[in-house]
């Protein structure tokens, strides 16, 4: 392949991994030591890793900035809800049931006379905890299993692939109804455990695929030819090059886990009162939808916004890391 045809697609990406030959190379191009000496002294002269390039892309992407701000806000209020909400989400006064917006309760009161604003703010903690923990668990389990299977291949790889096929066949909500209905503990942990159990095959499949892709690169062969150990090859050469798709999928999955928690709680198998969760609130508010739509509107709005923020973040990260554009 002595000729790399001019590819405009690569040109947009600028400083990519693959197609940096023609347009994409910056002044570094001239560093070949010609008798004129190195000329690369411009701003492009500093070393730039692909991660720092991705970060530079992200910062310029308004979608990323907006979604990151929303997520940051969510994280802050789930850590310290009392910063913006006074009182307890469990303090309800039936006398105020279904009342509208008023001082001290900007979102009004729900059917049980609980302050919707306070409950919505406190509900963020459940969602963020479930989302983050489930994603961490799924990402860890999935990428380790998938990564090892992809790297070593053979018998265990086949076994793992069949297992993931089985898990893909399980309908998530139905599985949740069945499995979680036998759980008596009213904490987030059974819900998280269920999500990890059902979620890891997706990540494992992605991780396996990207490890197999990374494994075929000549730099892995070069490291092997040098006598590098398996762990070195995996950690130093394969993992950094295979992790991007896992990050993208995990970010998007985080949003769906939050939605799933709300769904399960709505159905009564996730968290149950007196826990605070958007799903519970949506469930509790739905009978009064005609009389007190605000009690339904605010928690569902918060839920939709959160899920959207994570999905948009995932999209922005994908754009920044997409190897096809670089």
């Amino acid at each position: 392949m002595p000729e790399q045809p001019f590819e405009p697609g690569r040109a947009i990406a600028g400083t990519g991994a693959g197609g940096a030959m023609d347009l994409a190379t910056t002044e570094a191009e001239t560093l070949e030591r010609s008798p004129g000496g190195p000329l690369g002294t411009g701003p492009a002269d500093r070393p730039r890793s692909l991660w720092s390039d991705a970060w530079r892309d992200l910062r310029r992407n308004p979608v990323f900035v907006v979604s990151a701000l929303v997520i940051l806000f969510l994280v802050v209020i789930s850590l310290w809800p009392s910063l913006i909400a006074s009182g307890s989400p469990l303090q309800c006064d039936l006398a105020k049931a279904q009342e509208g917006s008023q001082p001290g309760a900007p979102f009004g009161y729900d059917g049980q006379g609980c302050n919707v604003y306070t409950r919505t703010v406190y509900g963020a903690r459940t969602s963020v905890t479930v989302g983050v923990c489930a994603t961490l668990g799924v990402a860890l389990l999935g990428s380790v299993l998938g990564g090892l299977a992809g790297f070593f291949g053979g018998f265990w790889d086949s076994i793992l692939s069949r297992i993931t096929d089985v898990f893909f066949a399980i309908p998530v909500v139905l599985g949740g109804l069945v499995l979680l209905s036998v759980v008596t503990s009213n904490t987030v942990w059974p819900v998280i455990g269920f999500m990890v159990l059902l979620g890891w095959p997706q990540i494992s499949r992605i991780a396996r695929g990207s490890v197999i892709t990374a494994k075929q690169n000549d730099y892995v062969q070069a490291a092997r030819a040098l006598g590098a150990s398996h762990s070195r090859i995996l950690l130093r050469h394969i993992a950094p090059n295979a992790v991007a798709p896992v990050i993208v999928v995990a970010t998007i999955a985080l949003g769906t886990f939050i939605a799933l928690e709300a769904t399960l709680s709505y159905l009564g198998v996730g968290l149950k009162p007196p826990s605070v969760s958007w799903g519970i609130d949506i469930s509790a508010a739905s009978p009064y939808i005609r009389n007190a739509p605000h009690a339904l509107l605010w928690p569902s709005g918060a839920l939709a916004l959160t899920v959207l923020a994570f999905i948009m973040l995932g999209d922005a990260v994908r754009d920044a890391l997409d190897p096809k554009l670089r």
Partner: protein
Amino acid sequence: MVEAIIEVDGLVKHYPLTQGVLFKKQVGAVKAVDGVDFVLNKGETLGIVGESGCGKSTVARMLVHLERPTAGLIKYKGEDITGLSGRALKAVRRNIQMVFQDPYTSLNPRMTVGDIIGEPYEIHPEAAPRGDRRRRVQDLLDVVGLNPEYVNRYPHQFSGGQRQRIGIARGLALRPEVIVADEPVSALDVSVQAQVINLLARLQKDFDLSYVFIAHDLSIVRHISDRVGVMYLGRIVETGRDEEIYDHPTHPYTQALLSAVPVPDPEAREHRERIILSGDVPSPTNVPSGCRFRTRCWKARERCALEVPLLAVPAVFRHVPGPAAHDSACHFAEETRVVPPEEPAGEAPDDLDEGGA
């Protein structure tokens, strides 16, 4: 006195073709390499040429232990290294290094150039004391003609030719005795190709290297090699010193290959007799009986389908010493001059001679 540094004897690599999902059963084999012998002497360059799918890259990968041979021996300084593993293998690896074809996939995009070239020292800590490594990496960059200040840059900041130099520097780091170069310039532009070839030639002298140089481009192989082996469908069909192969080829495949090379001179072409082969290379899963080349050979007769020709000096030349008397695996070997005799050089203008990497 010539001293053999690598001897390859009856090297075979078959990839099994399997069916079934979990319990696989073998239904055939891709005979990528099917009985290859050669010797690499100290300080020389052995060129291995052939078309895609002839098994030349698989040979290269077996030499550096990236693939395990199905059968056969690879000896390094007289010692069989085929079955080595662990520490013994690691020690041998220090001495046999590889330069890869594609400068875009052979460097880890997440590592700096300094880390890439310095990695051999991390894997073989005995090769260089820790404090000395950075200086050594910079020396290596200098040796391959790159600015030593750029150790902290990433591969994507370099062009193809520069990346190939980085790959060469990595190959040199452990001061190996043998470098296996698998199509090291075929991904590069013409003007940059020459720079890299010259660099390889210079390094060979400076570091006393022996090269196995794999390529599909016969003119590049001629330029750099002392001896040449021509491969077809997993076997070497003809081998000899450079002028024996290029000026006195006796195997019809070599002749066809030589005559098909485009020559950048419209006039030279007109005196050239061209052999255009019909058809395509057969699949390595289903190798023809007897001589593998017979399906495309214009000389093929019944004998070719029945009897496998051995790689030896053909009977007709056995008693006639001369350049045509070299190993050629053909029942009907005859000498045909395909490349016109070398024109007297001296046309090269002086004002252009200062180039070179």
